[in-house]
């Protein structure tokens, strides 16, 4: 006579729950210890240090170009290293390469999926990468032959198990870094499509990433729906640092030009600055009248200004050092989904759900 297996399973389940609870308490204790350690070296606030810095005067920035041509919401854009070309992607599956200065469209590709949430320009200017709901990242070499169908030369590089939220080339055309709704980031070799390194640690969708401009060039930061921003070592795949102070999903992360800090924008309507050497959050950029989430952030060339694109159709410009808002820019007729400063810092571009892109200077 065999005893029913149910009590055995029950004990196993109990054991598993115990382990889970044990791990949770260990994680919590370590986290609070970490916060204590971080607080020990925090001897001054950023705005105090910035008191001696001159304030910024009147700020005038206007839309200098409006790029019309997308048939649906613009979801993502990226600049080319030549400082005037951009690539943009939209919900209807179209990826367009523009010469933003003349507002001419130079290339157009139709992706087989809708919601192309990520696009990136290759450093050489000869290719673009894009992806979205197809869970893949594909690279299209840009050909100037008008008769050539760009889609024919497409190369599928990355393969995730959920949507692609962001992609970026590393220092060359040969490697791509991607982040996905499956909670992981990954580094791929473009030539072979091989996975070089994968990065696990986020507990929910990863929404954004940015590569560090550091001398050794080996790290990047990612932000996700688990409210965490993680800094990773590209070589080992390990998470070096982690920051969890936001109250909602982190939609955008961007490094400070020196590489010693990064800013993040979140659905909790704040942007925050995290210092990597001090290992803590050092500034919060928020205002009571701003109640909509931030979709995208970027720094000006000197790092003095932080531009944020918000879901209430506006762009807020922040003084990074003093923590105050310098200006608010109106113009878009729907939420701003993406914002990038040009490589030489002469302007920044925003893409919006109102189907247009605007260049501001």
């Amino acid at each position, binding site marked *: 006579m065999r005893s029913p297996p149910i009590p055995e399973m029950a004990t196993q389940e109990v054991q598993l729950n115990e382990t889970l609870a044990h*791990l*949770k308490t260990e994680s919590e204790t370590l986290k609070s210890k970490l916060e204590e350690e971080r607080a020990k070296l925090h001897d001054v606030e950023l705005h105090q240090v910035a008191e001696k810095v001159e304030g910024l005067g009147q700020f005038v920035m206007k839309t200098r170009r409006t790029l019309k041509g997308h048939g649906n919401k613009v979801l993502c854009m990226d600049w080319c290293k030549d400082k005037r070309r951009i690539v943009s992607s939209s919900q209807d599956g179209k990826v367009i390469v523009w010469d933003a*200065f003349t507002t001419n469209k130079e290339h157009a590709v139709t992706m087989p999926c809708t919601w192309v949430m990520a696009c990136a320009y290759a450093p050489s*200017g000869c290719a673009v990468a894009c992806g979205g709901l197809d869970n893949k990242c594909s690279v299209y070499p840009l050909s100037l032959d008008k008769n050539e169908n760009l889609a024919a030369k497409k190369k599928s590089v990355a393969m995730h198990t959920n949507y692609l939220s962001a992609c970026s080339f590393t220092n060359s055309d040969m490697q791509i870094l991607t982040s996905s709704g499956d909670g992981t980031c990954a580094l791929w070799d473009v030539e072979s499509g091989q996975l070089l390194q994968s990065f696990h640690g986020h507990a929910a969708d990863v929404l954004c990433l940015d590569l560090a401009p550091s001398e050794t060039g080996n790290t990047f930061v990612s932000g996700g729906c688990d409210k965490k921003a993680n800094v990773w070592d590209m070589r080992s795949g390990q998470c070096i640092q982690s920051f969890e102070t936001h109250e909602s999903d982190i939609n955008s992360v961007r490094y400070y030009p020196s590489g*010693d800090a990064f800013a993040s924008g979140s659905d909790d309507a704040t942007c925050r600055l995290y210092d990597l*050497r001090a290992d803590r959050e050092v500034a919060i950029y928020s205002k009571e009248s701003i109640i909509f989430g931030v979709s995208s952030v970027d720094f000006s060339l000197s790092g003095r200004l932080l531009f944020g694109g918000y879901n*209430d*159709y506006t762009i807020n410009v922040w003084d990074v050092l003093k923590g105050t808002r310098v200006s608010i820019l109106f113009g878009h007729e729907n939420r701003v989904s993406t914002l990038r400063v040009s490589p030489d810092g002469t302007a920044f571009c925003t893409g919006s759900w109102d189907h247009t892109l605007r260049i501001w200077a």
Partner: protein
Amino acid sequence: MEKVIVAMQDPDMGMKMRNQRLLITVIPHAMTGRDVIDWLIQKYNICEEEALHVGGMLVRYGYIYPLKEPRSLVLRADETPYRFQTPYFWTSTRWPASELDYAIYLAKKNIRKQGELMEYEKERYSLLHKRINHTWDFVVMQAREQLRASKQRRKADRIVLECQEQAYWLINRPPVRSLTLHYSLTLCVCVCVCVCVCTCVFCLCLQIESCRRALGRNRVKSSICLEGFVKFSEQYQNHDPIMQGCLPSNPWISDDTAHWTMNSEIVPVPTRLRVERWSFSFMELLNDPIGRREFMTYLEKEFSAENLCFWQACEDIRHGESSKIIQKVEDVYKNFLAPGAARWVNIDSKTMDKTLEGIKHPHRFVMDDAQLHIYFLMKKDSYPRYLKSDLYKNMLAKAIVPQETKKSVFPFMRRQRHSSPSPAQAVTQVTEEDGRAMGAGKAGTNSEFSLFILFISSHISSTGRAPSSGCMWSK
């Protein structure tokens, strides 16, 4: 958004409300658009434009609705009356706006006054009638019941309830199928669902591991880090076009690409700002092709050029094609690391041993340690000496300071925006013909002409100021 609404309705600090007249009935607890704007301005210390914007959002999302023209979902800064929507109807309460409810609402409207339904509502009514025909009796019965119950209320209350319901349905079933609002709400829900904390053992273990590592790391005092930001921003302020403008002018504003032409990858004479930047950090020098070339020339004079060549070769391995790694590593070993190599680099023995060991199984990062060693060697030793050298000082002296372009003499003539050769094309040209400077060929004539115009116009508009001797015409 709801925090704002709750603050507005606070009895002490909130909006002052009064009874508004709507036709002949008095509606309690209403406010004018002007009141809303003023309250926002006062409470949040913002300007009128921003208050209009925030208030407009509150109306668009249905937290406040207009009494007079319910279909016009805008906030007017005048005597137009508005009311707060009850929390029951808030979009965040996620009361699913089901088809059945909408059908009941339309049926009520139809019964109450024949011909009251708008065109789009009539369409939807008949569509729903077809779709949920099996429950139509229920729909009509519910509608009749609700109408009967409302007749028992005071007229003012009845109008208020009707307005609230109408406002709710205008948001959730907008007349023109404006997908933006609907999709944005659905996407919001999707994103919210994603915020579920994964409690699996794997994730917790990773977290614990990274916490432990973090506890062991060295931290720097806040005062030192934050000073760093202030210094960096100060140093780069003059180089930030958005902060200080750029010379001769910002191409996006003036439609003149002279700034880009003067600062393209390879130019005969770089600008002063560019050469100054090389002194900010070693990375700035190496990232600039002209800077790197100058540094190479300097190292050749010092007989240590192999360091920079080695560093470049390592970069090539790290960022190049996977298939070529093995070959490249072999070449680097032959040229730089093998005993008696032509361009032997001076690495400490520990790093050398580690690298030689790694070369047996070459991979992308096998040269990292050696590369870093040489990088810091150059940074600490050769770089500071280069900045003090005559080579650098001469570069700085003959660098161009472009004249600022005054506002155009003929303000009504817009400059023609010239296109530039695509980088994709430039690369194919280089592979076909050797040694052509990228982009300089085609754009040459246009930029020269526009420089000429600049020269003339700046000369005309500046009084008594002769152009600097470091003139842009030196070729």
